[in-house]
């Protein structure tokens, strides 16, 4: 434990504004989604959602701007730095658990629910209700194929997904190189390697978008295609969302590097983003294995 004085910020307007923005987003999203369902279109809900999201964006810029300013004024001790580190680590842990819920879902459905419906295992009598249904994974013909028409095909793991795996893994490498460079104070190397990371991330997103289009238009692999589509999209979808966020964060960090924000000793912002990026990468490896290959 250090005896440095711990910096406690004065009052701040950001949190309450952020709460309001979050509320607008949630309330707007609720209205939008309910509107979709009732086929009345979004209307005011969409406006609220957009207003909230915009406000949230601005608030985050302001809030982090504040933090960066304070950091530059040298208000942060190394103890403060550790608080941030704990904060980020536990946040990533919470993200791990979020994905764990979906992976758990996938495993349960594959190893228990679908076989039971297909007449296998201890609860196979369920098959009485679904005559003609046989269990298989990927599930091409769900029990009620009229309501949930299964996909016509599935994504071949050895094309786009493999490329994406390579992209993401190399991006983890490049961000590590950038980190090394940062520790050695080589600014131009950092800028270069970070840029490479961003490009790799963006490339991943482009391919994923392409994959989704293909899934929808050619393979009939949709959210509505039964539980295979459901698990596929919830896992890859949330992962894609995290890559998007991670890429945005990398871009911000990149801009900050160019502005000369980080020093070889103090660069928590950079590290936080790189941790996050590695996390996203690890999740992908899990996805590649369990969603695409197996």
């Amino acid at each position, binding site marked *: 434990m250090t005896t440095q004085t711990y910096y406690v910020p004065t009052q701040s307007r950001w949190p309450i504004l952020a709460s309001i923005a979050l509320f607008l987003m949630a309330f707007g999203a609720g209205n939008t989604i309910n509107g979709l369902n009732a086929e009345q279109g979004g209307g005011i809900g969409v406006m609220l959602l957009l207003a909230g999201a915009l406000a949230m964006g601005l608030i985050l810029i302001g809030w982090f701007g504040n933090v960066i300013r304070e950091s530059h004024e040298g208000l942060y001790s190394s103890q403060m730095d550790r608080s941030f580190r704990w904060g980020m680590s536990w946040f990533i842990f919470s993200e791990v658990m979020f994905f764990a819920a979906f992976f758990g879902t996938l495993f349960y459905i594959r190893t228990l629910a679908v076989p*039971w*419906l297909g007449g296998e295992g201890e*609860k196979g*009598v*369920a098959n*009485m*209700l*679904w005559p003609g249904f046989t269990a298989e994974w990927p599930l091409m013909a769900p*029990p009620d194929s009229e*309501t949930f028409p299964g996909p016509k095909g599935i994504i071949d793991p050895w094309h786009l997904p493999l490329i994406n795996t390579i992209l993401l893994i190399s991006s983890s490498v490049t961000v590590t190189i950038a980190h090394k460079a940062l520790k050695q104070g080589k600014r131009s190397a950092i800028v270069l390697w970070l840029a490479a990371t961003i490009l790799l991330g963006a490339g991943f997103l482009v391919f994923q978008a392409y994959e989704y289009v293909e899934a929808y238009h050619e393979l009939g692999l949709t959210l509505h295609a039964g539980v295979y589509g459901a698990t596929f999209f919830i896992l890859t979808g949330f992962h894609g969302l995290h890559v998007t966020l991670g890429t945005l964060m990398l871009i911000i960090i990149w801009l900050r590097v160019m502005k000369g924000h980080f020093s070889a000793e103090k660069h928590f912002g950079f590290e936080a983003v790189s941790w996050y990026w590695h996390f996203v990468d690890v999740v992908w490896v899990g996805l590649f294995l369990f969603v695409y290959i197996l």
Partner: protein
Amino acid sequence: MSRATPWLLVALCAPCAAWADWTVNLTQGVTDISREVYGLHMLIFWICVAIGVVVFGVMLWALIHHRKSRGAEAHNFHENVAVEITWTIIPFVILIAMAVPATATLVKMYDQSEAELDIQITGYQWKWRYQYLGEDIDFFSSLSTPQTQIGNEESKGEHYLLEVDNPLVIPTGKKVRFLVTANDVIHSWWVPDLAVKKDAIPGFINEIWTRVEEPGVFRGQCAELCGKDHGFMPIVVEAKSEADYQQWLAEMKQAKSSQAAAAEKTWTLAELMESGQQVYNRTCAACHGPDGGGLPGVFPALKNSPIALGDPAAHIDIVMNGKAGTAMQAFRDQLSAVELAAVVTYERNAFGNNTGDLINPADIAALKQ
């Protein structure tokens, strides 16, 4: 203070005890399994009481003797590994003693083999359907307590809320296997006397069995929140001796053929309206309201509804086939052709929907084929 609780309760309950018979404990039930479950329940209960007596006894002793007002001085011990290990191990041993018989009973309950009769039980919002597999018997069972009793306009009968129109009938002395499932949401089929409670999961089947030795009537309720009328979907099981059971089977089959005959006859609007009203109040009013007003946002009103005023074919279609993914279930199998025709006719002419349409039972019977 733990002393005070039971006395207070006794004091409070004494007056109540005077005016009704009340139970405070689990039923022993009527099957071997249910008696075993009761035994387990009492065993665990008494173990807990014994532990409670010891634990609270020591605490009470301390509360009385080690109080400052009595001049007690605080001692200074705050650790004792031996004691701490002891009171970790003893509860553990007690738990093992509980786990052994519990597991044995559980294994018995899970033994589905050698069933002599299979009955499929399906939960619907808010009634039960019983299908005797291989017997061509299939009927619905719903609450028969009149609405007036529930609304306190009439005094309540003996089996208030625990009575149905068509009870489930099973033979005594036979191992009956229930295949429990649901049509819409999750329900749970529970008859305490049989110690049977199984969730009815839509799309899946749960198996459970029972063997009742003596004839009798056993009452239970749906035990999983299943929407608005969850409190109003009781279960009545009648165990009949083999001979009575066979007779009942014959009567059921008889009733079925006379039902088919009724569809052949020609019905007047007034007749249809009258029986339609009955069917409506029994089957549809739970959701669409006795006055056809529905429940805004959840159940649509039938009064002035475009379907009830529009093309009769569409109306008949939704009533017979329901609408997938909504609470509107298919009534094709639940109601006879006459009932279907009657209820649709009723909806098209009641609540101010004066279309004047008459739906012919024979047409419905044709559709039902």
